[in-house]
């Protein structure tokens, strides 16, 4: 009996009626993961603990819709007692003595953490190939990438191992892999979800978000993880809300803006065509669609390179082999300890970004690059705000291509940024953005569309997303019925 293929509502009912137990779900999840082990979606499986928790839950009341459900957590989120590596050699022995706030929230909802998913090292990358543990594979075509940096979470959801996964998004790392693997990935408004326990890459950009196979489950998971956290001063002062509340409500009359830059020749024509088709479809359903110009979008990658690498160079300075993590054996002196620990512990992409980041912050460069970037960032955000005065949504493709080959050369350092050109502006402005699958390319690889909303309007995003999901009614199972009994 395959329970995890059912809808969340069905599973919940079965649990309430005691027709299925959490241990059944956990065992099924592990069996799925095992069957798909060559997809390399996980760095660590939480077998013993998950089973123990599942058995413990049998005595507890099924008190919420996520009760007893297994969830995969990206390996840059700190889990107490469970290896947390950030897909890096420098933390490959790190067992935290504390939990991220969202992990506490998952436990409050009695969800069961099934394992830690694979990712780009320290979330730096767009294909998860910088992982110390090798890249995860795209279930739609195992020669292709799943994207990054939340590639492992995307893979496990697309492969239908589990219903729920968490990723993190600094410059598109949830939405982009969601696009490549045909799943739903939401980056919430900056501050929606506590960052306490998310191993920092770029503090002013990072957010944790839900990755699921459909919009409803995505909203349910977001419900569980949001909330102001006194341990995170950047977390927003927002009351709890039900993000599913606008789903199913009429979208007629909504105004949509499509920035011309997002469908310019930087995007594959096939993808542009698909987005335009969707736009046309929405017009037919009574929404208005305008094509607009936004001046600052094209500079988002440059700003990101400066701000994200600058912040990262500082955030990753703490990895020095002194208080935890990998440490050079028999260092000659303290300098050797730093230099060698970090040479041994970090991969090439991480080193590159730390070095460029340090450089951009040093001496006069801070003024020329960093401070300038902060000024332009302000204008970029204001430009978005102006657009949202007139429009309800901004939409466009999520990625410039569909998933490319795992063997594609990795020697162009700019590429890892350009893969995210369409999604980075959203992090710059701190806005919420979702990827929903809207079609396939000629090789049947998923095409994703991004819906961007105004600050804290995730519920509204889900409204349009669920409408489209229902209307498009795509078959998003990469195994085409293999998992069905």
């Amino acid at each position, binding site marked *: 009996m395959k329970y995890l293929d059912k809808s969340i509502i069905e599973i919940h009912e079965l649990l309430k009626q005691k027709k299925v137990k959490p241990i059944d779900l956990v065992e099924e999840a592990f069996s799925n993961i095992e069957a798909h082990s060559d997809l390399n979606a996980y760095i660590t499986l939480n077998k013993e603990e998950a089973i123990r928790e599942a058995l413990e839950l049998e005595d507890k009341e099924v008190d919420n819709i996520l009760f007893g459900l297994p969830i995969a957590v990206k390996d840059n989120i700190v889990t107490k007692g469970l290896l947390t590596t950030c897909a890096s050699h420098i933390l490959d022995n790190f067992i935290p*003595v504390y939990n991220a706030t969202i992990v506490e929230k998952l436990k409050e909802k009695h969800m069961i953490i099934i394992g830690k998913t694979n990712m780009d090292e320290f979330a730096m990358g767009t294909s998860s190939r910088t992982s110390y543990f090798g890249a995860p594979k795209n279930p739609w075509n195992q020669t292709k990438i799943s994207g990054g940096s939340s590639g492992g979470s995307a893979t496990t959801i697309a492969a239908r191992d589990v219903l729920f996964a968490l990723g993190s998004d600094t410059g598109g790392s949830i939405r982009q892999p969601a696009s490549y693997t045909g799943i739903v990935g939401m980056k919430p*408004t*900056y*501050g929606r979800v506590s960052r306490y326990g998310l191993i920092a890459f770029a503090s*002013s950009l990072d957010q944790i978000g839900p990755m699921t196979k459909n919009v409803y489950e995505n909203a349910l998971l977001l419900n569980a993880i949001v909330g102001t956290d*006194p341990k995170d*001063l*950047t977390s*927003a*002062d*927002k009351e709890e809300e039900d993000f599913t509340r606008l789903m199913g409500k009429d979208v007629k009359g909504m105004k949509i803006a499509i920035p011309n830059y997002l469908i310019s020749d930087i995007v594959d024509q096939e993808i542009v065509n698909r987005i335009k088709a969707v736009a046309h479809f929405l017009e037919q359903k009574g929404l208005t669609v305008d094509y607009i110009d936004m*001046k*600052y979008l094209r*500079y988002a990658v*440059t*700003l990101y*390179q*400066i701000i994200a690498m600058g912040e990262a160079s500082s955030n990753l*300075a703490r990895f*020095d*082999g*002194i*208080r*935890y993590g990998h*440490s050079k054996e028999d*260092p000659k*002196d*303290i300098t050797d*300890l*730093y*230099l*060698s620990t*970090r*040479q041994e512990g*970090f991969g*090439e992409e991480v*080193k*590159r970004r*730390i*070095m*460029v*980041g*340090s*450089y*951009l912050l040093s001496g006069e460069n801070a003024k020329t690059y960093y*401070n300038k970037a*902060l*000024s*332009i*960032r*302000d*204008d970029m*955000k204001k430009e978005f705000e102006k657009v949202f005065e007139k429009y309800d949504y901004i939409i466009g493709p999520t990625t410039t291509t569909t998933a490319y080959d795992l063997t594609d050369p990795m020697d*162009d*350092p*700019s590429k890892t940024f350009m893969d995210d050109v369409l999604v980075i502006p959203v992090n710059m*402005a*701190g806005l919420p953005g979702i990827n929903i699958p809207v079609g396939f390319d000629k090789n049947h690889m998923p095409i994703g569309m991004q819906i961007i909303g105004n*600050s*804290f309007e995730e519920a509204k995003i889900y409204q349009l997303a669920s409408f489209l999901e229902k209307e498009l009614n795509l078959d998003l199972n990469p195994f085409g019925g293999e998992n069905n009994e």
Partner: protein
Amino acid sequence: MEEKLSREEVLHVANLARIKMNEEEIEKFRVSLKKLLNDVEKINEVEGYDDEILIAPWSSECKLRKDEVGEMLDPKEVLENAPRHSGNYIQVPVVIGESEGA
């Protein structure tokens, strides 16, 4: 002819980041770092923006915490996690010279 940084420039930046480089790495980074640094030059093309900065898209001001003691770690945990420790102390190879930041 590929644009490259000089060896010295790479070593300077590697030192800022406290990352040791072998010869092979230096050569690789001469090219890739130059590429990225060229990328960020695009920032000089931007015009017409104002001086106001956005450090992060915070949605509220800083909240203050009450001055009350919370949970602390058991010293054993602190020491167990540290690669080197001696007695109750975390240990590092001897440090010569004062902190540059003091």
